[in-house]
């Protein structure tokens, strides 16, 4: 057992190290943070010395050999220092600080939506499989395919517009964007923050449910004809209960993988939801890091997501074993 775990950990460390180093080297050789910091078209170019000092401070000086920079970065990494951010705004915050500030925000945003979406998806998928070809099945199917056919920003905007229409008509509505309102205090602030969570949660839940329900429907269809369900019915379980206790569990086995990765993904946030609801989570940090040619940020994010992915993979294997005693 110990051997098994240590081999796995070792493999993972190697994988993460490879991916991150690869990411760093790629980013460092491909990206031009100096152009972002000091745009060539800027009307007032800074003195060369200032620029050099700045780039050295960030370990992004293109005049320093790539491997030297890599070594600097690795050295920092060993000490738990991920370097500092770069970008147009010349902010020089430790990447680690930025990440640790943003992770809780992403988590707060994503967890609830993912959980609700998963549960709804599983339930809808199961019900539509059992009540196949009913009106409910057809409308759920139609809706979910429409949802997967829309770009996420459009789904978000539609939800926001619906909220707006309700607010215009009734006077009551939810805050459209922003997780906090600094103008409020105490209880009011808490109420605002709770309300602000509603719409992103709806969006995330709806999107997750749309695709989960499709997968869940087919895995459920696959178990519907099985003998053990007949046994469960013969024991005296009603349709629904037999499905819940015996069918569901079997149908969930392949879904375990998706759940595990959804949990991992919750930590990296959801780009569009964060962007369009203006939450300062990890998801948009990833994109801004890449588009700002932020080498340290990009490498750190790759490291972070790599670790999360592998943790998810482990969780997935674990879930599979948990759900299915046969393959233990």
């Amino acid at each position, binding site marked *: 057992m110990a051997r098994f775990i240590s081999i796995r950990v070792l493999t993972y460390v190697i994988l993460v190290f490879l991916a991150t180093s690869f990411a760093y080297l790629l980013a460092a050789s491909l990206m031009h943070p100096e152009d972002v910091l000091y745009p060539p078209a800027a009307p007032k170019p800074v003195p060369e010395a200032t620029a050099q000092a700045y780039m050295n401070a960030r370990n992004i000086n293109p005049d320093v050999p790539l491997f030297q920079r890599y070594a600097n970065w690795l050295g920092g990494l060993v000490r738990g220092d991920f370097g500092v951010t770069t970008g147009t705004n010349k902010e020089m915050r430790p990447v680690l600080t930025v990440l640790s500030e943003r992770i809780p925000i992403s988590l707060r945003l994503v967890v609830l939506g993912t959980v609700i979406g998963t549960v709804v998806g599983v339930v809808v998928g199961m019900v539509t499989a059992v009540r196949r070809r009913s009106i409910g099945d057809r409308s759920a199917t139609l809706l979910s395919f429409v949802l997967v056919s829309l770009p996420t920003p459009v789904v978000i905007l539609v939800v926001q517009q619906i909220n707006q229409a309700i607010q215009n008509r009734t006077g009551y509505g939810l805050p459209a964007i922003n997780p906090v309102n600094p103008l409020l205090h105490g209880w009011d602030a808490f109420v605002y923050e709770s309300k602000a969570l509603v719409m992103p949660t709806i969006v995330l839940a709806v999107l997750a449910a749309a695709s989960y329900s499709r997968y869940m429907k087919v895995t459920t269809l696959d178990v519907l004809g099985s003998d*053990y369900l007949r*046994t469960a*019915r*013969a024991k005296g*379980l009603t349709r629904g209960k037999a499905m819940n206790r*015996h069918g569901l569990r079997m149908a969930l*086995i392949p879904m375990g993988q998706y759940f595990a990765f959804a949990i991992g993904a919750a930590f990296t946030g959801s780009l569009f939801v964060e962007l369009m609801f203006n939450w300062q989570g990890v998801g948009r940090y990833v994109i801004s890091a890449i588009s700002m040619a932020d080498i340290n940020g990009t490498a750190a994010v790759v490291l972070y997501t790599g670790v999360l992915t592998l943790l998810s993979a482990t969780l997935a294997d674990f879930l599979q074993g948990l759900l299915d005693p*046969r393959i233990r």
Partner: protein
Amino acid sequence: MSEPILSVKDLSVAFDTEAGRVQAVQDLSYQVRRGEALAIVGESGSGKSVSSLAVMGLLPKGAQISGDIELMGKKIFTMSDRQLSDLRGDTISMVFQDPLSALTPVYRIGDQISEVVRIHHPEVSKQKASERAIELLEAVGIPEPRRRAQQYPHEFSGGMRQRVMIAMAIANEPELIIADEPTTALDVTIQAQVMALLKSAQEMLGAATILITHDMGVVAGFADRVLVMKDSRLVETGDVEQIFYEPREQYTRDLLSAVPRIDQGADSESRSVAGSAMRTVAEVATSDDTTPREQRPTVLEVEDLHRVYPITKGAVVRRKVGEQRAVDGISFDIREGECMALVGESGCGKTTTLMEIMQLRTPQQGEIRIDGRPTGGLSRAERAKLRSEVTLVFQDPMASLDPRMPIGDILKEPMRVQGYSAQRMNERVEWLLKTVELRPEHASRYPTEFSGGQRQRVGVARALACDPKLIILDEPTSALDVTVQAGVLALLADLKTRLGVSYLFVSHDLSVVRHISDRISVMRKGRIVESGPTHQVFENPQHEYTKELLDAVPIPDPKVARTRGGTVIDAEAFQGNSHDETPSEQGSVRA
């Protein structure tokens, strides 16, 4: 007479399949009264299972049903799902024919049994319910029930799973038990124990039992009344004695004549028609003794074979807490043209042995040689060639057939490997189906669309597809009615004598064994306790267990069965430990 607990009127069931409509049951009417044991016998595929599923209200959605079924005066077709669910498992329960895939693979055995208690008696605590599950496991003869309750279905042998089904059926002491071939995978001693259990339930609680079986011996010893079915219709019904001694219909007579009898030597004394036709099979099987055994080449040799399953604890972090010695050092050999029977207690490691042979690899311990060559040392090509020459009929016919493949393709599969032409495969599929008494149009049906016996025949047909030299059969006739069984056995006997095909034959039906096999090995707890030529073992059993087995064989003659009944089916059997002095395990457990 007491009033009927169940009455079936003009029941018809049909299915639509690719090859057109299948009329599974037609105009079936019968009644079962309180305290009565009704046996339904008849041709395989005649609608026995379908009609009983109809009673449970559990036919698959595609079935078209007409007629009426009244359960304790209530029409079940007018009842809601909830009302029916309240009855199922409590007032009326059923043991399904294919017990091997009927358990949910991901739940522990104990939980699956206690669930049935808790559904109908939510007031029972979890703790109590699992105690009850353990009690029930013990009652059906599963040793070490406390540990076994913690295992999953795939860790159980075929017979053990079947007993789990029985345990679930009797858990709530129902008024009506429908047992669809409940003892096919059980050895005779356990079978006797289980039948006694059912009988006592019937006698003590006044429950009614519907027993569907092909074992005329069981019918003779258990049933009050018998209902004979053929070709989706009722043929005749009557008291057990009347059926056995004065059958009115030709089919009933044919059926009885095809029953193999262990006491065939003494048949003249019996008034039963049972067994007459089988004598010919036995003659074919044993006549033609050309070369003496010693001079024939050895086809299969098993030497000191071991197979150990680890016993683990913990769902996530697995710890090995002991080992289950499923096969514990057995040796035997089979010569060309020889049929060797492996009999023994349920769960003693028979299937495991067969599987080890079929792997064609070095076993955990010991050696397996085919044609004198150790299986461990085979090259790829040799192994591939052997695969066509050694074939297996699985114990669980359902699980061994790909549910998403039509039967025709299943039968073609081994032939494809051998590169048969399409034309030849088609011809052969037709022939194979006919040989096992299925129809060519069945080729386009899927396994789920067959009756239990039909599936089993598909399994046998597949094993025969490519002219094998060694066939390993794991209970190949347990679900067959006796006429079909006679046909299959005759075919096997014929192949053996004329083509020198060898068999390793696992069966609990000692009468069948007696008819077909040349040699016999008796297995218990992972070891062979006795072996020798068939007649020798039958006539002069040496080991205690062999004697016990032979004594427990049911005789297809109601009178004989009743006189024997007292000796074997004793009251203690219900307590579940009559055969095992020590509360140990089939196969020994070492921590």
